[in-house]
């Protein structure tokens, strides 16, 4: 455990010194404030935190995954390419400890940036509007952190799977496109092929369960659903969704991605020669 903590601490220190944490926190704070003030719903002026969340969700689903991927893709392959991993593993530390230590450290960076960025923005908004629902905002922040951590795990898997930093980065970028665009296009395409456009355009059309399942296996969608189900003004699915699409289901999907990616990363890392 000591080794995991030491490596996690080093990751935080490294990212603090290279200004990653500050940059990401600033991005979150500025975007939240801009959306809250200039957001489309209700014209210009400060909006309630809940309304801000509704405006933020699309942006967060685009931004957090890319930040998670950028934080994690070089964590192993970058050090391997540079040579520092060889030195690190010559110390009394196991590969799984290196992997978990880095994961915890990068997750801490993600959590801090989310709390600092959204927190500062939340305080500014709360100073300008009345009756702020902090619990909704906290759920939004926690879910965003979880999404970020899932993508750190996926990025670490890329980092263990590839021999070159540039290949891992390419894979990370592809992963982002996969979950942000390609996945949705494929699932929607199958739905269209099955029912046809006319039927889909029908107001009373209810999508089949497999569609929800296939959509929500995508961690980005699982995050959106998680926030939608738990934050009052964002409930886009409510009334249409199958009963299995609930908070535990979405949480389980996100956790499965995280655990699955880390286990596979460990398997690949263990086999690697330095």
């Amino acid at each position, binding site marked *: 455990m*000591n080794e995991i903590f030491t490596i996690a601490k*080093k990751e935080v220190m490294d990212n603090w010194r290279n200004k990653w944490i500050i940059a990401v926190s600033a991005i979150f704070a500025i975007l939240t404030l801009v959306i809250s003030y200039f957001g489309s719903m209700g014209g210009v002026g400060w909006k309630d935190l809940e309304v801000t969340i509704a405006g933020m969700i699309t942006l967060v689903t685009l931004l957090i995954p890319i930040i998670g991927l950028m934080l994690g893709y070089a964590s192993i392959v970058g050090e391997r390419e540079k040579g520092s991993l*060889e030195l690190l593993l*010559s*110390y*009394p530390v196991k590969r799984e400890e290196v992997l978990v230590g880095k994961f915890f450290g990068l997750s801490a960076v993600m959590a801090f940036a989310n709390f600092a960025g959204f927190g500062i923005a939340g305080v500014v908004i709360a100073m300008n509007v009345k009756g702020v629902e902090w619990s909704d905002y906290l759920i939004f922040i926690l879910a965003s952190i979880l999404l970020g951590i899932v993508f750190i795990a996926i990025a670490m898997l890329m980092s263990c799977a590839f021999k070159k930093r540039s290949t891992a980065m390419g894979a990370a970028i592809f992963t982002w496109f996969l979950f942000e665009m390609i996945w949705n296009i494929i699932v929607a395409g199958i739905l269209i092929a099955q029912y046809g456009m006319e039927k889909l355009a029908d107001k009373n059309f209810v999508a089949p369960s497999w569609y929800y399942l296939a959509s929500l296996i995508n961690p980005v969608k699982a995050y959106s659903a998680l926030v939608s189900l738990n934050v009052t003004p964002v409930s886009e699915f409510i009334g249409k969704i199958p009963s299995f699409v609930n908070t535990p289901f979405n949480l389980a999907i996100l956790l499965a991605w995280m655990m699955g990616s880390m286990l596979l990363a460990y398997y690949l890392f263990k086999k690697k020669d330095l």
Partner: protein
Amino acid sequence: MIEAINLRKEYDGIVAVDGISFHVEKGEIFALLGPNGAGKTTTIKAILGLINYEGEIKIDGKNAKDKEIKKFIGYLPERVAFYDNLTALQTLQFFAELKRIKNIDFMALLKEVGLENDAHRKVGGFSKGMLQRLGFAQCLLGEPKLLILDEPTSGLDAIGAYEIRRKIKELNEKGVTILLSSHILSEVQELSHRVAIMNKGKFIAIDSVENLSKRFEVQPKLRIELQHPSKEIMNLVKEIKAVKDVKMDGNILEILCQPTAKLAIINAIEEAGGKIVDFKTVEPTLEEIFIKVVKEDE
């Protein structure tokens, strides 16, 4: 201290290390030599558990893969790399924490390698020589019993290299076992008790430099400076039975011969009317031994 049995490693079907067995005694300086791709670094990586391999490696009687054994090993890789955003002091603190060593005077350690004024500078801005010095400092953390040094003086200036060699000798005198790999053969000759010459993944010779020179008949050379060199002198020396080769380079006569032939050579030069200005015996170098052994193997 180190015992390797039938160590074998293949990379994508290419044999890097081909079933070698060797041991390194406690308190010994043991050098690994070989042309590029001979398997030296693979052997070192196997000892440190950085690669998967076939065979068995024991350090101090315990399995080398045992995590705890690494507490007693200091390693300086060929390509020293640290974390750019950490300072030299933070770097040492990080590695000391991994070894769970407390009460270290980091500044004294940095002073020992000449980096005391750079303790708070980010490692990312260090020159290759400074990185090498910091690398040497990190491998001394926790007073290791075994030091594995891959090109320890690489990137250092003459004074830096001399200081590192002096430190290696000093550590060895205190009982530290050292496994060394270097392309600077004079350095290996100066430091090591035994050398292992590798080629194509196998050991082709393991012994002390002295024994290897005897075994491979790499003989000492005489370098005689003459006041008035002549062909007559050269021919007379060539006629001596124990003389194998004679070369003339300006005023210098370079003679490859058996050590017993010295007196006969001096007499021959004087008989031919030559005047000796200077006389030196040049011992066989590791470089000569190395080249001969590798060429014979190929």
